[in-house]
């Protein structure tokens, strides 16, 4: 779903709501394909991987190309099958070819931290919501 590129002011198209929409959509797909009731460890592990990737992907897509780190993550997602990199996605080791001087790096870090905290908040809310509704 393509939301407007507007940010912040309009609550319906804020980063958080874009992320929530995308992530919940991905979650629905994952749980539909793989019913949770059959919970063998490998299944759970597989699901965990998919959910984590979906979470990071949702955030990267919500930020789109506005940030260097999101561009790096998106390119990594797209090229993951052909050439995987065993590294964890860290801002400090982004495989972006753009010039990252200290100033830009600090900006990117601040934005990345903000996005990560949003991710954590939303996922926690989801967990608790469905945890309690059991």
């Amino acid at each position, binding site marked *: 779903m393509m939301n407007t590129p507007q940010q912040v002011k309009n609550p319906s198209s804020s980063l958080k709501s874009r992320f929530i929409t995308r992530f919940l959509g991905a979650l629905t797909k994952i749980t539909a394909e793989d019913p949770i009731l059959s919970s063998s460890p490998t299944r759970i592990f597989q699901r965990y991987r998919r959910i984590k990737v979906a979470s990071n992907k949702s955030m990267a897509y919500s930020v789109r190309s506005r940030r260097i780190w999101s561009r790096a993550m998106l390119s990594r997602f797209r090229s993951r099958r052909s050439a995987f990199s065993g590294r964890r996605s860290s801002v400090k080791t982004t495989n972006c070819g753009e010039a990252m001087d200290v100033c830009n790096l600090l900006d990117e870090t601040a934005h990345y931290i903000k996005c990560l905290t949003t991710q954590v*908040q939303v996922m926690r809310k989801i967990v608790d919501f469905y945890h309690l509704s*059991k």
Partner: protein
Amino acid sequence: MDVTVLDRQQATYPLELFASSVPLFQSYLGSGPIVELKRPEAYLGGDGFHEFVYFPVGGGPEFGDSEKLNLVPPDAAPGYCISRTSSCQMTAFHAASMKEEREDMILEKMESTTGSGSRESFTKRKAEVVADHKSKDKRIKGEVEGESEVKTKCSTQVSRNSSKENSKACEVQKPDYIHVRARRGQATDSHSLAERARREKISKKMKCLQDLVPGCNKVTGKAGMLDEIINYVQSLQRQVGFLSMKIAALNSSVEFNVENLPIKEFPAYVANFPAAAKLPAMPNLTCFQLNPMQKEAVNCMLNETIHPPLTATEGIASASVSIPEQALSSSTITLQPFSTWNMDPQGLYNVYDMGFH
């Protein structure tokens, strides 16, 4: 007391009184406040330079000698404030002068308007006025430097005894140049100034990051700060991993529909959560109950955290290998990284009542 009076006044009046012409300070050797000076043309109102220097004091007597001239009555003070657009040379000092200490401000004006010969005499007079006495040599030197730097649109800050060391950028009427105040003893060429501006930009951003990352107040220095930031980012990424494991382990078949989670209530909802995201260290698990199969899945995840697998299939293969070894021995230990995310259920339930009718 002198200082305070002038400081107060400084805050009120922009001190841009001099235009191009140079008042004669030679005659003023600190003998007394009363001086016969040539007025600069653009100097509005007032009777003499001393009035400017001593500033329109609401109450004259507390300032220096009783001999001192009366200073312009307060109601005429506005006449001293020349509009910023009037004089071109003095625009550089405007914005900064409002905030600076009096000595520097007056001195700057002198720098741009006085000839070099008058500097020493003016310095002497100024020294009397100033409560804190600063070494004259350094000041003169600063003035000389400042004189040359005015051309390059920078003003040199004179030595101060105070511990304040901030350098400021003055916004001026001419937007082409950014006026930066150089610290004493530092080079004032354009390269080092640009360097300094860049460094200050970086330190400003570091301060913003310090606000974002909790627990940075104790750490000083860029290296320590960067370490903290890296740790925090990694801990946030780990939390995302743990939360996704939790979601994977949910034993519910509820659909993840957007309608179920009203988005507008999220901000209030979030406020009720503990700031567990801010703890880089994961406290012991207390209330997260996992069945054995989920525990094994958690083991896999933790293995993955330590040794990131290359592909999904490899990850699962390695996970299945490690399960028998670790499941029995370390099932409790490996659960430690889970933080106490679950709040008091009663509190959460109340929140749900609020938000999810």
